[in-house]
């Protein structure tokens, strides 16, 4: 899809529908489920429509909204003290599974979610983009304002930290699918 086509009403609809759900999943991992992740995502697309960056194809468009949403999410995270609120919510729930009757797979997903929340926001972003969305280091770098070489090292550190948290939480290799 060419730049002009992407910013036509029909082109935008197709682009938005194919990218927005995944972007929302990513932003929720950055700011939490109840902290206006949907507002961040909408704002990113609105800014795309307002600013109409030149030479925008689908890949660049996706990078553009991910970059904008990452910046907005990090600002929201800092400004609203979401880190503290998340930590309080974790303490009050005691880290236990929220529903006793959940399936094992769902319980495991919740545990992975909790493990992720214990990481700094940039590490969560790196891990999600690389390991959940399968983005290359070259794609991740501009989204998070890093050099591709730095992505490799920072991602390595983030993965090791997440593995340590998994171990602390008792998420051993047998829990894998």
């Amino acid at each position: 899809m060419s730049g002009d086509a992407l910013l036509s009403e029909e082109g935008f609809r197709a682009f938005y529908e194919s990218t927005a759900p995944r972007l929302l999943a990513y932003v929720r991992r950055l700011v939490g489920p109840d902290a206006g992740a949907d507002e961040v995502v909408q704002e990113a697309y609105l800014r795309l429509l307002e600013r109409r960056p030149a030479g925008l194809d689908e890949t660049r468009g996706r990078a553009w909204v991910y970059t904008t949403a990452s910046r907005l999410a990090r600002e929201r995270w800092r400004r609203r003290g979401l880190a503290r609120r998340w930590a309080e919510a974790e303490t009050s729930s005691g880290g236990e599974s929220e529903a006793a009757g959940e399936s094992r797979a769902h319980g495991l997903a919740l545990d992975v979610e909790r493990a992720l929340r214990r990481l700094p926001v940039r590490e969560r972003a790196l891990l999600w983009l690389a390991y959940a969305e399968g983005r290359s280091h070259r794609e991740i770098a501009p989204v998070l304002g890093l050099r591709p070489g730095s992505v490799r090292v920072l991602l390595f550190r983030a993965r090791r930290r997440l593995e340590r948290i998994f171990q602390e939480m008792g998420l051993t290799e047998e829990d894998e699918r």
Partner: protein
Amino acid sequence: MRSDRRPCPREEKVVRHLVEDREVPPELLRHVESCPGCRSARRVAARLTELASASEEGEVLSESGLPPATELWRTAELRRRLRERERDARRLVAPVRVAEAVCGALAALAAGTFVPRLAAGLEALIPPDPAAATLAAASAAAALAVALGGLGISRMRRGS
């Protein structure tokens, strides 16, 4: 056996194969088995892709809770028009702002030129009697207060 102290250069390739659910070539698979870093990456990727697929956002917009594209398109149009109006309004007001600045500068210049002369002239007019001088000063202050008050009222009216 490789150690897990440095990032493995093949990790990115391994992860992309796993996340995109592509078949890992046997040679790469053999590498993963012997590389602790790639094994760890495989574990983390498995957990995160599982979490992503279990997420309530889903892959379809209607399940995500986000507004439809048409709504965003309309909001963007409204915002754009609002910005244009603000820009137009700023453009209309600009000459008035320039005129105000020029008037202010002229007033300052006039004050700088004429006030010392006026003061010298007034000094010559002041009667030698102290009571008469006080009366003249009080009258001048009252006249100045009335003038400033009038100016203030006219600005308030303009503001409202």
